[in-house]
């Protein structure tokens, strides 16, 4: 028997009107409010990543989180000052399902400030992220690699440029606009242009060709 039901029935059996019992329960609602507010606050607070103590020690995750949470952006210098293991910390934060989505999104964006091979592999493997917001950001994160790894990026863009989400296609087209023009890239963009209906994507595709 559930406790609340037991309490309710107990009062009722002793001749106490249910209306009074219910009134008392309603009156105690304000007591519950601070508790629920506290719970909500706790659930919204930056959640620790998995095995947080170890990671926090190695990567200074708390310091990185703070830099990422700034309303008006972050810099490479700011992130480097927060941790000696910045790219690894960012990958850890971006990947952690226990992490606040705001921090995850910011971590993906920050990866673009550190365009190394490991980050390229990391981003490339996540172009199909389940969360559409993250997926868009991962596609956009290919941008810094476009000028130097054109062929690889072009190959990676084949799927995103046909994605069902218009903004995934927009980001793919914008990244394509940073890849040095080649036959392969022109073919990819032209093929999509023939079927693309979204005006924003079409504009990005045109820009990718006309430069």
């Amino acid at each position, binding site marked *: 028997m559930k406790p609340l039901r037991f309490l309710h029935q107990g009062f009722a059996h002793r001749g106490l009107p249910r209306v009074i019992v219910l009134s008392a329960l309603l009156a105690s609602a304000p007591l519950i409010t601070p508790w629920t507010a506290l719970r909500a606050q706790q659930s919204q607070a930056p959640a620790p990543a998995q095995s947080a103590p170890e990671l926090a020690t190695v990567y200074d995750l708390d310091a990185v989180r703070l830099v990422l949470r700034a309303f*008006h952006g972050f810099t490479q210098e700011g992130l480097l000052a927060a941790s000696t293991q910045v790219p690894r910390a960012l990958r850890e934060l971006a990947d952690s399902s226990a992490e606040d989505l705001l921090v995850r999104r910011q971590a993906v964006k920050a990866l673009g400030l550190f365009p190394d091979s490991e980050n390229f592999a990391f981003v490339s493997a996540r172009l199909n992220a389940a969360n559409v917001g993250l997926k868009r950001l991962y596609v956009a994160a290919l941008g810094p690699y476009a000028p130097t790894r054109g062929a690889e990026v072009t190959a990676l863009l084949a799927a995103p440029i046909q994605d069902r989400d218009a903004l995934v296609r927009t980001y793919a087209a914008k990244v394509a606009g940073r890849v040095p023009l080649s036959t392969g890239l022109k073919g990819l963009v032209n093929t999509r242009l023939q079927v693309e209906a979204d005006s924003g994507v079409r504009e990005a595709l045109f820009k990718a060709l006309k430069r």
Partner: protein
Amino acid sequence: MERDSSLLWGRLQPKPNPARITYGYRPMTLRNKISLQVWLLALLIVLPLMASGCKKKTNSTPAPVDKGLRSTCVPAPYAAAAPYTYTTATPLPQAPLTTGYDYVTVDIPVDSVGIGIVLAGTNANLKFIEHGVLMIPSTDCMKSPAGVVPFAFNQMDLNGDTYVDDEYSSLSNYQAPAVFFPNNGQQLILPKGRYTFPVGSVNAAETATESDTLTATVYYMTPSAVVPTLKVNLWLVAGVNTMIDNDPNPALAMSSDPELQGALNKLIATYRDNANVGISVVVNYQHIPDSTYATLDTVTEINTLVKSFPTAPSPNDAINLFVVASIGNQSAPNPIAPAGVIGYSLGVPGPFTQQGTVVSGVLAEYQHDGRGDHLGTILTHELGHYFGLYHTTQTNEKQTGYIGYDPISDTTVCKTTPLTTCADKDNLMFPVAMGITPLQITVEQGRVLRLNPVMK
């Protein structure tokens, strides 16, 4: 004759359990019933009091750190939370700008509690000159009818510190600069008469475009009996949320989107429920069908978006909140710096009720978390900037220390690290989105908000 006691309370009262009667159960006497009811009534009174006590304690504002600001406060004869109304005054004919800086001259016909001005001109670098920007002498700051400086916008270096002067100088192009005072939450009575404001170009080397004829819109605030209301247009750009885009009535679909609703609930609760503010918020949903504006990579794109949607639902009546997919993303060759911006206000303050300028609104990134808590925090924070509030503590880019603070004396300045220990970390204008609810607003911050001409 045994009476069916369930009749006494109608259907609410179950019939007595015969088994328990067999074991000596006696129905409650009237006396016992009354004493229990008294006990419950006492609970009804005491429990809410206990709850409110807890809440008050949670919301208490920590003791402020002395910022060394000189007090120019003149006690006003009206309540601190008095609502205000604005009237627009016609400025005097302005001479074209010449080199250096000149003055805008305004005649305010009655005693007021606040004055706001929005300039317009073709000079893209037009700006109000505050003491410290071009380091003009403090005696050349805004002057009152008595010829004195009634309020210094930027009281710099009073104790070796500065408060943030113009953190958005890399973003705004100043085509509609706005100024509002007092922006430090003090209660002043500004005597009627002629005021002068120094204006000029932020580009000190610029001379070619300074022969610019100005127009100015002047707002002056006087006490009012009307409860202030803030009208906002919530614009969602196509592409951000495809479910909304595909709905036959996207604006209606916005009103049931959990993330947008969660965000608005936080915004409304912050501004309405805080005793220091008490502003009611009216929301108008708008959908922008062009996904071109969903990804903003350059300042030009931002300005184009903000300028392009001036009229709905009625012109010059509400503040525009633009929800987009991303701001300054790495997919662009030269994205806005710094990276990772999640929200912008196009002015501190923004040009009040004027729409259709390149700085008429605030931006926020949709977070795709389905709750809207962070989106709400971003929108609420950026609106605070638009109303003229600065960061309580301006932190450095490493988020390891402070480099300045706001001009408001009852907000705290965090001089400790890590920032998670800051006393102002739960304030609306803390520069880091800590994910805290509810966001705090001090008495003087509330006064700045309520004095803004945007409030009707």
